């Protein structure tokens, strides 16, 4: 119980210090973090009563509507059950009632922080089903927007997780940069979130004039900003003692549980679908896969922060190599004709009418297409029955699968470390529940 009191004191310190810049150059001299306490082996505490506590679904630290039923012994988590489904909206079922191009805005709303990835997973799956090749410019534009979205998603994660640990100012800094990304989305697509920018066959519009300069200035600034975040957090005593050595799960166990993405890479497994599979412009890009060593929460933080810098490198290269040409495929059976043609070409008008009313038909077939989202392998399974509506759309959401590792991350640790582990797990409940 004495240790528990110490933790409480350090939490109190977290809130009063505001969490930022409170450490000195103490990082290296710090003693190695003490592992999770094991009251069963130590002197018997006065009371070993196990208490079941319900956390959530409406708790700010659960990052959405996640409910946790936690068995506590003192402050130590003994068992844990996540209860999900509070934002289930039946998107997969609704998709079966929409023609293919109308499914895109639906699937964007699953994981509402990484919407471009959902679009790419679905559009990519349909393109492979109808064997439609997308033009090179579209590939590069998609790569740019996916990586921007990855930075955006990691910024939201960093801001909110640091907030959980008491570093309030991180949230403002992260959301300041996020705002610039949303401005870029708005400039290109007209929407800040849920842009419906990717279409089957390419992207809906070319990037506007002035976009490139704005993006370049963002890409130049971003590595500096990431350095500033690290300067704020890497010497923050509270942040370090809260993250180092907590939430460790072995690499083998993570693989058994199907965990992918930064969580797996933090445990030292260099597995990234952008490198492993050939999609979009990633084969032409030169970037590294950051990996951790221990697989604790600190490594998870370091991996994601390093990924942001790698993403800016990808965007830079894609901008430099951005090919000229059409931004969407020319196949009129699947792609809307340009607006200007409608008043002059009868054929275009017919295609337009067919596409907007019935939509295009996709021949019978089924396909699973997976991409690397900010949270791991995002797979989309599309079953086509030959009609203009998909017979089944299923998303293998990384948050949903990764959540299974949460019990392993938390059992035996303090409840405060559990909150930290949950933040580092980075589940998006819209994606979990779909």
């Amino acid at each position, binding site marked *: 119980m004495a240790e528990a009191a110490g933790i409480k004191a350090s939490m109190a310190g977290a809130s009063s210090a505001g969490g930022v810049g409170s450490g000195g150059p103490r990082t290296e001299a710090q003693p190695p973090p003490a592992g999770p306490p094991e009251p069963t082996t130590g002197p018997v505490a006065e009371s070993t009563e196990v208490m079941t506590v319900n956390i959530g679904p409406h708790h700010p630290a659960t990052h959405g509507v996640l409910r946790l039923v936690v068995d506590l012994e003192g402050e130590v988590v003994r068992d844990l059950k996540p209860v*999900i489904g509070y934002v289930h909206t039946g998107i997969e*079922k609704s998709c079966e009632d929409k023609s293919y191009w109308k499914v895109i805005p639906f699937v964007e709303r699953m994981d509402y922080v990484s919407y471009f990835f959902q679009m790419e997973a679905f559009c990519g799956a349909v393109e*492979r089903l109808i064997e439609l090749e997308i033009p090179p410019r579209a590939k590069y534009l998609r790569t740019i927007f996916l990586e921007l979205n990855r930075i955006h998603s990691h910024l939201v994660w960093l801001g909110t997780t640091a907030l959980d640990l008491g570093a309030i100012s991180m949230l403002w800094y992260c959301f300041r940069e996020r705002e610039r990304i949303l401005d870029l989305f708005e400039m290109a697509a007209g929407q800040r979130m849920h842009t419906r920018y990717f279409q089957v066959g390419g992207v809906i519009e070319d990037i506007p004039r002035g976009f490139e300069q704005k993006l370049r200035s963002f890409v130049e600034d971003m590595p500096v900003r990431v350095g500033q975040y690290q300067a704020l957090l890497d010497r923050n005593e509270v942040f370090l003692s809260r993250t180092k050595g907590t939430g460790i799960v072995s690499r083998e166990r993570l693989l*058994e549980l199907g965990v992918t993405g930064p969580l797996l890479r933090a445990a030292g497994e260099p597995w990234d679908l952008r490198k*492993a599979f050939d999609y979009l412009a990633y084969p032409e890009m030169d970037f590294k896969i950051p990996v951790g060593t221990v697989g604790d929460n600190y490594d998870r933080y370091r991996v994601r922060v390093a990924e942001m810098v790698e993403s800016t490198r990808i965007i830079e290269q894609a901008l430099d190599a951005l090919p000229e040409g059409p931004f969407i495929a020319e196949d009129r059976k699947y792609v809307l004709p340009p607006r200007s043609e409608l008043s002059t070409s009868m054929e275009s008008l017919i295609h337009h009418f067919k596409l907007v009313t019935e939509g295009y038909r996709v021949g019978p077939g089924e396909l699973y297409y997976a991409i690397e989202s900010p949270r791991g392998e995002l*797979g989309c399974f599309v*079953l086509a029955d030959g009609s203009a509506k998909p017979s089944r759309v*299923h998303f293998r959401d990384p948050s949903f699968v990764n959540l299974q590792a949460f019990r392993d991350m938390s059992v035996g640790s303090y409840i405060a470390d559990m909150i930290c582990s949950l933040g580092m797990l980075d589940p998006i409940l819209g994606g979990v529940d779909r």
Partner: protein
Amino acid sequence: MPDAPGLELIRGAIEQDNPGAVLDTGFEHGCASLAIDPEQLLAVLGWLRDAPGQGYRFLSSLHAADYLPAEPRFAVHYELLNRDRVERLRVKALLADPAAAVAERTDSAAVGVEAGGPAGGAVAPFSTPPTPRQPQRDGDEGQLLPEIDSCVELFPTAEFQEREAFDFFGIVFRGHPDLRRILLPDDYVGWPQRRDFPVGGEPVTFTYNERNYG
């Protein structure tokens, strides 16, 4: 992906130990798939995971699908991944709907009611409020559910995904440690992702509409 001849080699090797396990092989859009007999699922998955030279040790995704007019109607898909060779392989376990088989035997007129279950088929959204809302499992209310072995022992990642397939398709995974609904409420009736479950067929529990417009 294993190419088409590679797929036939896999099929041959599986057939050696488990004759009749592989029903069909498919190779479309660059994706290889094996359709297998659901009774031999664990043997096939275990062989693909552990046999030397195979090494499909990562289960990317497990999901169910309903091919309604076709027979057998359901399929559980296992998207396996070999991370060393970067190859994907889909294993499809085809499952017939036992409710339809029973209905066919007893009375052809009852097919619509039996196959769709209490909430499927021809349901009138507002006319009948859901009277007894009980957690429904196989056998409840006389509905038979398709069954398949759970692969949680082989791939622990399947736990949530099998619960999801049970939740939405009513496929029972034998030997699953905790087979409950996962995304829908525990007292939900029906299997909403089946193709004969209507969109918007959820009975609304407010009585206002029924009283005034029903």
